[in-house]
C-alpha cells in the first residue's frame, strides 16, 4: 500500500480538498484508494460526498475499543473514507495523550488493515505542528506538503522540513502548490521563487484557484464529471500522473510487503 500524508504548515491551504480530489481521481483510474481523515475537524467525508457529518469514525472506535477502520464509508466513486468521527474536548485530550505516548500508533493500525497491495492510502491532517500530522508523517511513505502562493507559505517552508526530519527522517517529501491565481503577477513571481527554492521537489503542476472546486463541493458532485475541461481538473490529472510516474513510482507496495 502506498501511504501518503498530506500536510501543511499553514491552515486553510486546501489539504482536505486536495486529499479528496486525488482520491477521487485515483479511483477513476481504477486504483483502490482509502482516505483517512486524521483531523478532528472531521470534514473529509463531506468533501467526499457524505451529506452529513459522520458521527462514527476512528476516534469513537478507538474509545470504544473497536478495531481500526471498522467505520470506513465507501462513496459512489468507490473511494473509501475513514472519518475522524464526532469528538469532544475530553475525548480529544485522551486521544492526543495516547498519540504522544505512542508515536507509531497510526502506523501500526494501518499495517493491520487488509487492503490490496497496489492500493493508495491518503491521510488528511490538521496544520502543523500537530500530533495528528506527526502520526501521519510517521506512517507515510511519501509526504505531500501543500503550499499557498503567498509569502507565509514561503516563510514556513523550513518548518515542514524540520517537522519531517524530526519524526521520519528517511521519508520522501514533495511540495504541491494549491490555489494559484496565475493572472496575478505577484503569485506567478512567488511560484518562481518556490521553484528556485525547491527545484525538482515542487510539483510542476500547481493547482489553480478555480471556481469549479467550491461549485463541485456545493453540488456534492465530482469535479471531474462536473467540469472536466476546467483548468483545475487538468492540474489534478497532471499532478497525479506526475506522482505516479515520479515520486510514487518507487513506493511499490508489493516490493515493500
Amino acid at each position, binding site marked *: 500500500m502506498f501511504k501518503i500524508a498530506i500536510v501543511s504548515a499553514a491552515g486553510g491551504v486546501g489539504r482536505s480538498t486536495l486529499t479528496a480530489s486525488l482520491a477521487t481521481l485515483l479511483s477513476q483510474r481504477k486504483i483502490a484508494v482509502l482516505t483517512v481523515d486524521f483531523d478532528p475537524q472531521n470534514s473529509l467525508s463531506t468533501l467526499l460526498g457524505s451529506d452529513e457529518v459522520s458521527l462514527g469514525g476512528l476516534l469513537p472506535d478507538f474509545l470504544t475499543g473497536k478495531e481500526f477502520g471498522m467505520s470506513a464509508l465507501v462513496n459512489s466513486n468507490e473511494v473509501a473514507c475513514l472519518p475522524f468521527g464526532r469528538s469532544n474536548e475530553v475525548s480529544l485530550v485522551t486521544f492526543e495523550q495516547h498519540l504522544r505516548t505512542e508515536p507509531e500508533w497510526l502506523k501500526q493500525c494501518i499495517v493491520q488493515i487488509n487492503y490490496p497491495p497496489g492500493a493508495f492510502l491518503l491521510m488528511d491532517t490538521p496544520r502543523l505542528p500537530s500530533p495528528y500530522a506527526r502520526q501521519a508523517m510517521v506512517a507515510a511513505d511519501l509526504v505531500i506538503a501543500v503550499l499557498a502562493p503567498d509569502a507565509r507559505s514561503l516563510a514556513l517552508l523550513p518548518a515542514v522540513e524540520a517537522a519531517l526530519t524530526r519524526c521520519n527522517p528517511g521519508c520522501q517529501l514533495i511540495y504541491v502548490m494549491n490555489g494559484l491565481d496565475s493572472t496575478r503577477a505577484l503569485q506567478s513571481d512567488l511560484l518562481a521563487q518556490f521553484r528556485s527554492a525547491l527545484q525538482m521537489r515542487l510539483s510542476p503542476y500547481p493547482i489553480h484557484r478555480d471556481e469549479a472546486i467550491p461549485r463541485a463541493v456545493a453540488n456534492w458532485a465530482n469535479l471531474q464529471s462536473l467540469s472536466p*475541461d476546467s483548468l483545475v481538473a487538468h492540474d489534478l490529472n497532471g499532478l497525479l500522473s506526475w506522482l505516479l510516474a515520479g515520486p510514487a513510482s518507487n513506493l511499490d507496495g508489493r516490493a515493500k510487503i
Partner: protein
Amino acid sequence: MRHFLLWVTRRLGVFRPNQSSLWLKRFWLPKAGELAEPARLELGSRPDPLAWLAKELGVIDRYSVWQWVLYLFIYPPDNVTHTKIASKSTFLALPIQIIGLLFSMLVRIALAGVQALRWFWQRLLSFLPAVNNEAVGRRLEGWLETPTFRKPWLIWLLVLCSIFFFWLVVTTPFTWLGQLLFLVCLWGAALFMRRIPGNLPALILITLSVLASCRYGWWRLTQTIPLDSGWETFLAISLLLAEIYTWIVLLLGYVQNAWPLKRQTLSLPADTSLWPTVDVFIPTYNEPLKVLEPTVLAAKGIDWPSDKLNIYILDDGRRDEFRRFAEEAGVGYIIRPDNLHAKAGNLNHALKLTHGEYVAIFDCDHLPTSSFLQLTMGWFFKDKRCAMLQTPHHFFSPDTFERNLGTFRRVPNEGALFYGLVQDGNDFWNATFFCGSCAVLRRGPLEEVGGVAVETVTEDAHTALKLHRLGYTTAYINIPLAAGLATESLSSHIGQRIRWARGMAQIFRIDNPFIGKGLSFFQRICYGNAMLHFFYGIPRLIFLTAPLTYLYFEVHIISAAAAMLALYVLPHMLQANLANSHIQGPHRHSFWAEVYESVLAWYIILPTAVAVFNPGAGKFNVTAKGGLIEKSFFDWTISKPYIVLATLNIVGLSIGLGRLFFWNTFETGTVLLNLSWTIYNLLILGAAIGVATEARQVRVSHRVSANLLVALHFKDGSTKMCRTEDYSMTGLGLMLDQELKLPVKERVWVSLWNDEVEFAFPARVIASHGNKLGVQFDNLSIEQEANFVQCTFARPDAWSNWSDEQDVDHPLNSLKEIAIFGFKGYRSLWRNLGKGFARQHQSLRGWLGRQMI
C-alpha cells in the same frame, strides 16, 4: 479624329458603335448584320419558327448569336432563366465555359488513360515477386561500408572501366529501334530504382540520368546542327547554348547534391563557464517596429547565460521610436552616421563596437527560437576551424506563390529546395553558404576577411566565399531554429531575387570561384553552380519561345527527324526528372522549378547582364516586408512579359494547328513535337500569370496554426482548458471541446505554457462561434509580449514538424496540378481583361454618347 472614327464605323455598317454585338455580327457573321435593323419591324406579323424555338430555349435576344450558341449548347434546357443577359458578359463567359468544358474533357480523358495504364501496370507488377524497398535500400547502404570497396586498385579499375563504357554508351549511334530500346531499358531501371530510398539509389539514378543526358548532348552536338542558312544557324546555336547551359547546371547540381550531409546537432559542455560570449545583431533599415519587436523579444529569450549574451538593434533608419524600444526592452542600440554599403556596412560598423567571441545575425523579421544557440554552438567546440554555421530560413507566412496559387504548406516552396537539399549538399563539400540571417559566425575569421563583404549586393554568399578561400570550414544544420515572414507581393519577391541574381553575377565577375586560390575543386563546383544558376534568364526565355521559330516561320532549328529527336530527348528529360524527383522530392515537386524560374526569367536577365559587364552599376534595394495586400488585384505591370510570351505562344499554337491540318501535313511529327512543347510552355506561363493575380490578405499579423494548450480564465473565477488553432502577435484562435457562447468584448485571461512555466495574458473576446473563439490581447506590457513570444514563436519545437503534412511528389500529379494552375491563370487573365475592357467600354460609351448628341 472622333468624327473620323464614327464615320468609319458607319461605313462598316455598325450603326451603334457602343453595342459590341453589332460589331460581332458585322465581322464574324456578315449575314447576320443584315438582319439587324429591318427584321425588327416584321416581328409578330406571322408565326416565326425561330421565335418559337427562341422561346422554348429561353433565348431572350433573338438577334444575339452568342445567346443562341449559349442556350443551344451550354445551358441545360431545364435551366431556362428569363433574365436579360448582358451581351458583354455572355461574350466573356462563353469562351471561359467552352475552354473549361474542353479542359475538363481533356482532363477526364487523360485521367482515364492514366487509370488504364495504372491498372495495366498493377497487373504486370502482380506477376513479379514483391520487393521490400526499405530493406533493399538498407542493404545497398551496407555494401558501401564493406571493406571490399576500400581497396584503391579496385576503385581505380572500376573507374577506368566505367569511363570506357560510359564513353561507349554516349557515343555509339543507334537506329531508332536501338534508341527506343535504350530509352525503355533506362526508364525501366529508373522506375525500379526510384522506389528504393537512400543515397546509393539516388547516385544510381544520377548516373543513369547523366548517361542519358550525355548521350543526348553528344548526338545533339554532332548530328543536329543545321549549317545551311545564317538565320537558321543563329537560332539553332542559341537553342544549343541554352541547352548546354541547362546541361552544365544539371551536372553541377548532381555533384553538388550527391551526398547531402544531414549534420546533427552536438551538445555543449556541461560547464556553462566554458560557453563563449555571443553578440546578437538585428539589423533593420525601414521595417516597422511591429516587425522588429517580436524578433528582439525572441532573441532576448535565447537560452544562454545572460552575462554572455548581448543583443543589439542596428538601426540604419535612426528612429527614435526604435531607440526607446531598445531601452525599454533592455537591449543595445547601435546607429551610424551614414548608410554606406547597406546591411553589410551596418553589420561591419557594429562589429567594431562590440566584442563577443561569436556573432549571431538575424534579419529583423526572423524570430529565433530559444534553443537557437544551444543547438548550434556545439559545432564550434568540435571544429575549431569552423567559422560559420547556417540554419534554414523558415517562413511561417505564405510567399507569393503559395498565397496566389493556394499551395501553402502543401507544395514545397521556392526556398525549400535550397534549405532542404542544396545547403545539405554544400555542407558535404564544406561549401555551406552564409545566407545573411539565422547564422552564427566566429568573430576572429570574420574580422580576418575584413568583416562582411561589401563589394557585392549579396554580401552573405561573398563573405562565406572569402572564409572558404582562407581555409575555414562552415556548417549547416537543417533544423528550422528561426522563422520569419515571407515576401509579401510578387513585385517584392522579384525585387529580392533580382538582388540575389545581381549579387551572384557580381561575385562571378569580381571574385570568380572557378579561379583564385584557396578553394577545393568541389567548393568551386558548389559556388559555381550557385552563381551559374542565376543566369537562367536567357535560356529560359529561349525555351519558352524556341518552338515558335518553327511554328511561325517554319525554321528548323534542330535538324533531325522529329521521331529521332523525341527518342533522344525523352530519356534525357525522363531520367533527369526521375533522378531529381528522387533527390529533391520532399523539397521541390516536379515541374515547379519551371514555374519558379519562368516567373523571374525576364526580370533577372538585365540585372545579371549589367552586373557581369559592369559590377558596380545599379543600386541596392531593400525588400519590403510586413505589408498587406488589401484588395485582390491583377499585377499588370509585372505580368507584362508573361502575357506577351503567352500571346506569342497562343498565336503559335493556332498557326501550328493550321500547319498540322493544312500546310505542313508532310511533317506531322515535327508539328506535333513543336505543338506539345508550346502547350507545355503555355501551361507554365499560365501558372506564372496566376501568380500575378495577387490574392487578398485578410490579416495584418500573420497567424501561425498550432495546437497549443491554453487555459481560459473567466471573470467569475471559473476556467476552461482548450487548444489553439492559430496564434499571432495580437491574438489567438481557440478551439474548445464544447460550444461556448461568450459576449464580444468580454474580458478573459488566457494562459499559455512555455515548458512548465505558465504565463497568463489579458485579452478580450472578439469572435465566438460554436466551439471556436477568437481573442485579442489587451495592451500587453513589453514583458508580457516577451513571454508570449517565448510561449509561441520561440518554442524550441515551434517549426520542427512544419512540413509533415506536405504532399509527396508524384511527377504526374504535379504536372496535372500545374496544368490546372495554368488554366486558372488564363481564366484570371481573361476575367481581369474583361474588367479592364468593361471600364474602358464605359468610358468609351460615355464619350461616344457625347459625340452623338
